[in-house]
C-alpha cells in the first residue's frame, strides 16, 4: 500500500478508535473462545484417550451369564489383546458409622490387572500377604478422609468385615463415580468403590467371577469385534454388555466433551458474526463519508485495486489485532481450563499440548470474518465514480412512511418528531437488519445459557419432587420379606415404606438390546410416580412393562409390542404398557403382583422406598434407620438433589460469563450502529439544535429509534433463542439424561430487560457525542 494511504488508514482508525476497539474486542472474544474451547476439547480428548490407553481401560465389559466361557472365547478372538475375569459386587460399606451402598471390584493381588488398571495415589498396591487390604477409590477416600492405615467395614452378606486401606487409587472406570448408566449422579455418602484382591471379593460376594473385561489391540475401538463379542456374550447369558463409550463414567464424560466441542463451534461463530457485522457497519459508514476523498484518489490515478486494498485494511487491522492476541489468549486459557478440569475430576492423565493448527485456524477465522465484513464496503469504494464523488454527491436515501404508519393510520397523527424516530428505524435497512441480528445473537447466547439453568432446575424438580416421591431408599443386607419393609413404618418418623426390587435386566426387541435395571415396585406405588409420554401421570399397570422413553428408539418398539426381559438367566416376554418420561436414566418398571405372577414366587425386596413424616429431622432418622440390623445402606434422595444444587453454582458462573459476553457483544454491535447512526445524521442533529430543539429531546428521539430497533430484534431473538436452547439441550439428551427445554417466563422477561439495558447503555457514548457537535461547522457542510 502507498505510504500516505497507510498513514490515512491508521489515522482513521485512531479517529474512530472507540468503534474499532469495539470491533477488535468482539473479534478478540470470538477468537479467544474458539482457541480456549477447541484446545480444551482437544486436550481433554487426548487426556481421556491417554488415560484409557495407559490404564488399559476396557474396550468391552460383559457381566452375567457364563463369564468363564466368554473369557475363553474372547481371549482367542483376533483383535482382543487381553480378556480378564473379575468379580464385582455391590455390597454395603460402613465408614465411621455411615452406611452406604458400595461396590467391591476384584484385582490380581500381586500385580496390576491386564485391563482396567488403577493409579495408586497414596499408599501401595495390594499385597497378596494381606488379603484384607483394600484400595479405596479417590472420591470416597477424600469424602471420608480415608488414608493408608484407615479401616472400614464391608458387609459380606452375613457379617460386617473390617478391612484396612492400603492405598487410595484413581480408576478410569470411576473418573465420574456413576453407579451405572441409570444412576449417573451419586454422592460419596451414598455410593463408593473399593478394589480388593480378587479372592477377597469373591468371598465377599459369595460367588465366582461375574465379569469379563476385554482390551482390544492397542486399545482401538473395533465395531465388528464388539458386535461379534456381544453376540457371543448374549448367547452365553450375559445380562449387561457395554463398550468403553457406553461405560457409565466414560459416557458422562463424553457428554461433557461433546459440550466443549459444541461450544467451540457455536459461540465463536456468534462472536465472529457480530464482530463482522459491527465492522461492516463501521466501514460502510467510512466509505460513505469518504466518497469525496475516494473520488480524489481515483481522479489522481490510484487504481481501483489500490482503493479496494486500502478499505480492506479497515477490516484487516481489527481482524489482526483482535485475532493474534485472541488466539494466544485462547491457547493459554485452554491450558488453564484443561488443568482445572482434569484436577476437578481427578483425571489420572492430563495432556496439555500446543496445537499450531488451532492457533493458525483461530487467526485465520478472525481475519476471514473481518476481511469478509470489509469486502462489500471496499468494493463499493473501488467502484465510486470520481466526478460525482468529488462534487460531494452521495446517494442519499429518500424518505418514506414507515410500515407502522401504513398499517395503523392513527400513527400518522403522531408528532413529526416521533415520526422521524419511527422512520429512522428503516432509514438504513441493512444497518437495522444487522443491529437486529446482533440483538438476536445476544438473546440466543443468553437464552441458551440461561435456558440450561432453568431446564436443569426443572429437571431436578421433575426427578426429585414430582417423580421420586420418596425421601430415601433403604437397602437391605439381604433380600427382605414384605414384613421387613412393613417394620420400617414402625420407626418413628417414617410415614410410608414401599418394597422395591432392583434386578439387572437386558431388554431385547427387534434384534436390539438395552441393558438396564428392572424396578419392581409396589402395586399402586405412591412413592415413585410414572409420567407417561402419552397419558401423563399413570398408575403402574397390572400387566406389561413400563419403559423409559429412550428405549422406544433404541429398541424400535411401540406400546403393545412384546419385549424380552432377561433377568438372571431367565427370559420372559411382556408387552410394553407405556413409555415414561424421566429426566435421569432409562429404567424398566413392573408391578410387584405382575412380577410375582410371572416368576411364580413371592418376590423379596432389595430395598424400600420411604417417606418421612412432616417435620422430621432427616439426619436423626437416617441414624435410627441405619442402626437397624437388616439395613445395609441408606440413600438420601435429598442428598443427590443437594449435590446437584451445588453443581448449579458452576452453571451460574457459566451463565454469568455468557451474559457478560452476550452483553459485550450486544454492546459492541449496538454501540457501533449507534455511533454510525449519529455520525450519519450530525447535520440533522445540528439543524435541530440550530432551530431550537434541546439536546435532551434529540436524545429522546434517537433513544426511541434505537430502542425500536432493539424491540424488533427482541421477539425474533426470543424465538430463535428458544429453539437454539432446545437444540443445544437435545444434543445432550441420551438414555443417561433426558433434557427437555423448560424456560421460565421470567427468564424471557429478564433477558429482554437485559438487552434493553445494554441498548440503552451502549447509546451513552453516542449521545454524549451530540453535546460535542459543532453546529456552525456542520450546518455549513455539504455532506455531514
Amino acid at each position, binding site marked *: 500500500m502507498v505510504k500516505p494511504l497507510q498513514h490515512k488508514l491508521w489515522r482513521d482508525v485512531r479517529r474512530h478508535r472507540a468503534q474499532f476497539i469495539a470491533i477488535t474486542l468482539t473479534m478478540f472474544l470470538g477468537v479467544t473462545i474458539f482457541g480456549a474451547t477447541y484446545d480444551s476439547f482437544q486436550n481433554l480428548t487426548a487426556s481421556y484417550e491417554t488415560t484409557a490407553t495407559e490404564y488399559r481401560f476396557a474396550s468391552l465389559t460383559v457381566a452375567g451369564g457364563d463369564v468363564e466361557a466368554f473369557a475363553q472365547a474372547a481371549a482367542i478372538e483376533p483383535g482382543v489383546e487381553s480378556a480378564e475375569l473379575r468379580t464385582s459386587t455391590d455390597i454395603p460399606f460402613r465408614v465411621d458409622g455411615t452406611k452406604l451402598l458400595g461396590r467391591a471390584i476384584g484385582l490380581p493381588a500381586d500385580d496390576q490387572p491386564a485391563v482396567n488398571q488403577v493409579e495408586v495415589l497414596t499408599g501401595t498396591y495390594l499385597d497378596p500377604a494381606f488379603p484384607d487390604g483394600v484400595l479405596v477409590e479417590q472420591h470416597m477416600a477424600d469424602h471420608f478422609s480415608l488414608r493408608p492405615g484407615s479401616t472400614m467395614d464391608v458387609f459380606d452378606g452375613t457379617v460386617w468385615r473390617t478391612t484396612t486401606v492400603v492405598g487410595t487409587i484413581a480408576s478410569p472406570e470411576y473418573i465420574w463415580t456413576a453407579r451405572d448408566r441409570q444412576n449417573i449422579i451419586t454422592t460419596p455418602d451414598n455410593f463408593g468403590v473399593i478394589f480388593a484382591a480378587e479372592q477377597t471379593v469373591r468371598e465377599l460376594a459369595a460367588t465366582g467371577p461375574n465379569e469379563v473385561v476385554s482390551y482390544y489391540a492397542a486399545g482401538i475401538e473395533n465395531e465388528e469385534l464388539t458386535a461379534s463379542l456381544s453376540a457371543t456374550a448374549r448367547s452365553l447369558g450375559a445380562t449387561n454388555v457395554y463398550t468403553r463409550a457406553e461405560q457409565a463414567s466414560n459416557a458422562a464424560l463424553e457428554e461433557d466433551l461433546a459440550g466443549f466441542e459444541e461450544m467451540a463451534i457455536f459461540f465463536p461463530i456468534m462472536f465472529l458474526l457480530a464482530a463482522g457485522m459491527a465492522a461492516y457497519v463501521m466501514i460502510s459508514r467510512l466509505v460513505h463519508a469518504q466518497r469525496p476523498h475516494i473520488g480524489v484518489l481515483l481522479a489522481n490515478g490510484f487504481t481501483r485495486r489500490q482503493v479496494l486494498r486500502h478499505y480492506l485494511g479497515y477490516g484487516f487491522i481489527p481482524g489482526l489485532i483482535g485475532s493474534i492476541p485472541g488466539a494466544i489468549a485462547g491457547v493459554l486459557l485452554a491450558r488453564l481450563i484443561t488443568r482445572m478440569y482434569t484436577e476437578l475430576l481427578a483425571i489420572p492423565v492430563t495432556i496439555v499440548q500446543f496445537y499450531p493448527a488451532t492457533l493458525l485456524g483461530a487467526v485465520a477465522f478472525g481475519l476471514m470474518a473481518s476481511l469478509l465484513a470489509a469486502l462489500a464496503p471496499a468494493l463499493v469504494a473501488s467502484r465510486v465514480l470520481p466526478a460525482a464523488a468529488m462534487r460531494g454527491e452521495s446517494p442519499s436515501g*429518500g424518505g418514506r412512511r414507515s410500515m407502522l404508519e401504513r398499517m395503523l393510520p392513527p400513527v400518522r397523527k403522531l408528532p*413529526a418528531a416521533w415520526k422521524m424516530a419511527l422512520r429512522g428505524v428503516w432509514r438504513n435497512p441493512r444497518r437495522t437488519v444487522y443491529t437486529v441480528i446482533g440483538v438476536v445473537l445476544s438473546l440466543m447466547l443468553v437464552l441458551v445459557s440461561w435456558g440450561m439453568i432453568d431446564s436443569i432446575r426443572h429437571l431436578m424438580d421433575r426427578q426429585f419432587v414430582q417423580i421420586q416421591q420418596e425421601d430415601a431408599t433403604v437397602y437391605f443386607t439381604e433380600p427382605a420379606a414384605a414384613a421387613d419393609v412393613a417394620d420400617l413404618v414402625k420407626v418413628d418418623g417414617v410415614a410410608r415404606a414401599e418394597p422395591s426390587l432392583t434386578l439387572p435386566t437386558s431388554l431385547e426387541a427387534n434384534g436390539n438390546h438395552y441393558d438396564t435395571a428392572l424396578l419392581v415396585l409396589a402395586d399402586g406405588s405412591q412413592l415413585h410416580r410414572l409420567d407417561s409420554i402419552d397419558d401423563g401421570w399413570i398408575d403402574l399397570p397390572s400387566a406389561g412393562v413400563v419403559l423409559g422413553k429412550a428405549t422406544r428408539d433404541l429398541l424400535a418398539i411401540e406400546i403393545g409390542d412384546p419385549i424380552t426381559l432377561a433377568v438372571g438367566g431367565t427370559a420372559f416376554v411382556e408387552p410394553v404398557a407405556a413409555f415414561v418420561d424421566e429426566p435421569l436414566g432409562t429404567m424398566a418398571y413392573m408391578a410387584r403382583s405382575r412380577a410375582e405372577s410371572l416368576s411364580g414366587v413371592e418376590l423379596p425386596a432389595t430395598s424400600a422406598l420411604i417417606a418421612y413424616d412432616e417435620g422430621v429431622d432427616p439426619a436423626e432418622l437416617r441414624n435410627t434407620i441405619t442402626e437397624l440390623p437388616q439395613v445395609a445402606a441408606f440413600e438420601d434422595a435429598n442428598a443427590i438433589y443437594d449435590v446437584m444444587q451445588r453443581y448449579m453454582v458452576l452453571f451460574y458462573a457459566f451463565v454469568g460469563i455468557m451474559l457478560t459476553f452476550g452483553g459485550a457483544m450486544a454492546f459492541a454491535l449496538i454501540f457501533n450502529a449507534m455511533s454510525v447512526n449519529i455520525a450519519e445524521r450530525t447535520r440533522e442533529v445540528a439543524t435541530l439544535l440550530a432551530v*431550537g430543539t*434541546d439536546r435532551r429531546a434529540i436524545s429522546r428521539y434517537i433513544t426511541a429509534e434505537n430502542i425500536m430497533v432493539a424491540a424488533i430484534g427482541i421477539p425474533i431473538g426470543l424465538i430463535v433463542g428458544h429453539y437454539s436452547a432446545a437444540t443445544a439441550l437435545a444434543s445432550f439428551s441420551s438414555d443417561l439424561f433426558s433434557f427437555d427445554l423448560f424456560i421460565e417466563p421470567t427468564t424471557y422477561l429478564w433477558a429482554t430487560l437485559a438487552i434493553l439495558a445494554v441498548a440503552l447503555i451502549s447509546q451513552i457514548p453516542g449521545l454524549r457525542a451530540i453535546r460535542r457537535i459543532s453546529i*456552525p461547522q456542520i450546518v*455549513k457542510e455539504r455532506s455531514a
Partner: protein
Amino acid sequence: MTIKLTEVWKTFGEGHTAVDALRDIDLDGPQGEFSVILGPSGSGKTTLLNLVGAIDDATRGDIEVAGVNLAALSVDEQVRYRRENVGFVFQFFNLIPTLTAAENVELVADLTSDNGADRAASVLEQVGLVDRMHHFPAELSGGEQQRVAIARALVKQPPILLCDEPTGELDFETGRMILDLLRRVSRESDQTVLLVTHNAAIGAMSDRVLRLRSGEIVEDTRNADPIDASALTW
C-alpha cells in the same frame, strides 16, 4: 427586534494558530431591516451570522438582541432564544430526509405551539408549496427544498431571520424566486433579516449592505431605494 453588536471579536484556535474570524465588530440592526452581508470566502460572514443566531459564542464583546446579552445565556437559554427568536435558512437546506415537507415544517412548529400541522400547512401555502407538502425532500427540486427550509424558518414567526447563502445551491431563476420570497415574507412579518452571500448583486434588493473583509466591516451602506428581487440579475 434590534440587534446590537459592540466590539465583538471571534477568534478560532489558540496561540500561534489563532485566527481572528471577526475583529472589533460594531453593528446596529433595527427591527424590520433586511441586511445583506457581503464578502469573500473567509471574511467572517457566516461567523457573524452564527453569533447572532447563538449557535456560536463570541470571544470578546457584547451581542444584544432586544436588550438581551447573548453572552450571558446558559446553554438552555440559548436553545430557548433560538427557538423563540431565530429562523435559520441554510445553503444546503438541511431538511430531514425521512420527513415530508409538511412534517419538516411541523417539526419546528411543534417547538412553539400545539397546532403545528395546521401552521405548517399555512406557511407552506405562503411559500407556494401546498401541493407538494406531502413529498419527501428527495422528491423535491432544490428550489422547492429551499422553500421548505424557508417555511420551516418562518413557521415559528421568529423576529429574526438568518439566511446563510440561501441561493448558493440554486440556479439563477430559482435563486431570484427564493430571494423574492424572503423579501416578501419578511416584509409581511416585519422581520429583521441578515442574509449572507458572496453575490454582490443581491445587495441591490436590501435595505442595507455590510461588506466584510478579513473579519472587519469595511463598508456599511444604506439602500434608500431597494429594487425588487425579480429585477435582480447576476
